[in-house]
């Protein structure tokens, strides 16, 4: 633990020096360039409060050098892609959404390789050999239900949800609108041996698709639906809010037999030949910041599991099973899957 503290301090002093440099250049360039030119743009998805906190932290160290643009994961995906098609992605750093889009970007050579400091603190399973993006954290997807509504027999697995005889009302994020939703759906697809029948069964029940992932627990909590598939971290945040505001929270999680689906949230730096060295540096620092202990502590408070060895994911039951899907395969299957999926949910 000592080690880590030190390195943190090192990082901080490093940053301080840079801030000073920054101030100097600011003065030099005042007449010619606007300060906005020095700020990097970050497309980011996730809980607003968490992101604000991260931004605050980063900028107390580094000054106002980054503009965070918060959006939903689906939006982030399409915005990045539209800009790519139009000529140049406008973001310097992209964080959030699912690995699919990062794979695609990386395949087209649009991501910069970044030097990660203290990479030894990252758990091995999160280290990517042949990709120019990094995992910041991961989410555990479980079954979430409303204990007031769901009084009958509870499903024990994802499979049960579709194949048992109970007639729950089920809610899930739309794979066509939400990228996490897509991640979840394609994981379920893989778990069921690429058999689309699973979704056929689901759709036969009282089944509903939401725009975004965050809506799933909300809708269940509000009593509109009985059960759904959603990241566990949202449940944690809802619980916190309920506690603060003083109302009851009827949500519970079921850790499915197949194991909780793990969705990893990558971060990457967009390649841009015209980017100034200074901005390049800030971008790299930002990526490093997200992986730093300080930032990881924040995100884990919001329910995201850290990629660092030195942070405990204490909100998740210790003994649960997890399953990781094969993103390379998922990227290949995506088109076929989406077609079948769209045929069902029409």
């Amino acid at each position, binding site marked *: 633990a000592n080690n880590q503290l030190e390195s943190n301090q090192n990082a901080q002093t490093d940053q301080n020096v840079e801030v000073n440099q920054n101030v100097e250049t600011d003065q030099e360039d005042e007449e010619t360039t606007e300060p906005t030119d020095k700020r990097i743009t970050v497309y980011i998805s996730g*809980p607003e409060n968490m992101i604000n906190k991260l931004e605050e932290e980063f900028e107390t160290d580094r000054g106002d050098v980054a503009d*965070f643009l918060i959006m939903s994961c689906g939006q982030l995906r399409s915005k990045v892609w*539209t800009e790519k*098609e139009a000529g140049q992605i406008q973001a310097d750093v992209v964080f959030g959404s699912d690995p699919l889009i990062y794979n695609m970007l990386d395949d087209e050579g649009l991501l910069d390789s970044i030097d990660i400091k203290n990479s030894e603190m990252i758990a091995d399973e999160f280290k990517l050999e042949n990709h120019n993006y990094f995992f910041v954290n991961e989410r555990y997807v479980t079954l979430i239900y409303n204990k007031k509504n769901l009084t009958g027999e509870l499903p024990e697995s994802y499979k049960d949800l579709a194949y048992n005889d109970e007639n729950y009302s089920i809610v899930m994020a739309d794979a066509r609108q939400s990228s996490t939703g897509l991640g979840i759906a394609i994981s379920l697809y893989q778990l069921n041996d690429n058999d689309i029948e699973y979704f056929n069964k689901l759709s036969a029940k009282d089944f509903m*698709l*939401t725009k975004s992932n965050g809506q799933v627990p909300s809708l269940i909590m509000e009593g*509109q639906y009985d059960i759904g598939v959603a990241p566990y971290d949202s449940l944690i945040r809802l619980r916190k*809010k309920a506690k603060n505001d003083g109302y009851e929270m009827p949500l519970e999680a079921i850790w499915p037999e197949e194991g909780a689906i793990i969705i990893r949230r990558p971060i990457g730096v967009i390649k841009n030949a015209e980017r100034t060295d200074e901005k390049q540096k800030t971008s790299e620092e930002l990526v490093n910041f997200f992986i730093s202990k300080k930032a990881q502590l924040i995100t884990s408070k919001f329910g995201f599991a850290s990629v660092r060895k030195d942070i405990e994911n204490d909100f998740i039951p210790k003994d649960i099973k997890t399953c990781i899907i094969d993103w390379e395969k998922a990227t290949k299957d995506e088109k076929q899957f989406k077609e079948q999926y769209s045929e069902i949910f029409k």
Partner: protein
Amino acid sequence: MKNNLKNNTVKFLNKNSRKLSYSNSSLIFLFTALVVLIIIVFPLVYIIKISVIKDGRIFFDGYIEVFKDVKTYRALKNTVILVLGVLAMSVPIGTILAFIRNKTDYKYNKAIDYFVFINFCIPSYVLSVAWIECISRGGFLHRILKMILPTIKYDISPYSLTAAIIVLSIHLYPLVYFAVGSGLKQISDILEKTSFLLGGSKRKTILGITIPLVYPTLISIGFLVFTRTIANFGVVSNLVLPIGTEVLTTRIFQAISELNLTVVAVLSILLMVISLAVFKISKRVKYKEIENTNNTIYYYALGKYRIGVNIMLSIFFSIALFIPLVTLLISSFLKRWGLPIEMEYLTLNNYKYILFESEVTKRAFANSIFFGIFSATSAVIITLFILYFKKHNNRLKDKLLFSISNLPLSMPNIVLAIGATFAWINPPFKLYGTKWIIIITYIALFIPIVLKHASGLSSNISLSIDDSAKTLGVPLIKRIFVLYMPQIFSGLLSGWIICFLISLREIPISLLLYRKGTETIGVMLFMIQSNSYGLETTSTLAVIVIIFSVIGNVLVKKIVKGNSVNERISD
């Protein structure tokens, strides 16, 4: 005395400034054409380009993909159902209300104006939220039913095409109301009186004369409703997408999520072509415009129907206005939507959060107001020029300008935003990431809306008004601003107000084009629900937006009335 007058009158020949007039005309035309070209045509060209060019080669795979895909036809079918449904609902509702307001001696006709206006102030997206809050399983309707019949099995789904039709109709009927109202006001009482004289009863006269006389208005406003419906995304995404039903706009959205921009462009072009075709067909319908010869209006006496009308209106406004408003209001005070309505779950925190704690929200309000005022005003000025040239010169190029300016109306806002992204992302016109890209796209969206509102009035003006000014040596700029504008002012004003309202709630454009510092209320509306907050915060924001819209409108009307001449023209 005569001599005195003669000496005092001015010799005509002493000014060379009027020499400029001719070049002025071409200059202003050039300016207008350029603006339209840059703001509307340029992004459109990109959309077309995306649909046919990939990696520098021309290809039609996008078209083939779209037209081979059964999903396209399914979406098309649903779109048709949606449009027909909305037309079938909103047009009669708007017409009947406009009739009661403008053609009868109904006592509370001013109240109808206010209610309809407030109805229009509610963003369609918010209306769909209110709908969900009412109808869904955790919604108020279910709760009330449960109180009455505790054992009830409630299985009404808030999500369906019908729901979208109802919500969109409630949202769009005010457009019909406003347009038909001004059409009805132009009917000279003599036309109806003649029918009475010839033995026509009131009912026969209403059905045979009064209403048919506003067919041209109905057709053009029906077209507006049509385009706004096929271009709508907010409501369908909220009420139709969740059950997987697709319409063309959601197809477009899917294509965006699937990162298939070619298909997006092809589908957008399809939408545009459909609108154009419908527009052409609607122009064929042979009805003569009413000439405004006389501004006396005939008012039908309601007599014994008064009670019936009162009941009907009460029911209607309860459903269309009060229930949604009350729903939103109650929800906005809940700690979390879905909780029982009890003291312990009520809070003011939502308001506190939005009004005082969130910096972004404050900025969003400021931005939306600025974008709204700036874009609406610019659109009004451009429209003024377009209309002036169309009316007074009516050359081929004037007509062309007019038609082109109407195009953005049939495109979903999100497509406008994509077009703008492509058009403005690369140097030398690098507006992407600045507030100007939002403003420019708003202007493109607003021009046709203002056009629709003012062109009717414009066609009623006698051409000799401008001719006489010419013979008196009045230069073009003055003719446009001092003589022409005041006469279509009420149309421009209502267009302006509607555009302003739209910018207080517009989601897709700003959502795709905003950046830190240029957030709008629409962005907030969308983001708030997507994040850790539920419907209660959306409702709170919606309530604030509605209050804002109403106050803003009252203010604008007050200011304008102070120095408006319109009242005098119309009396």
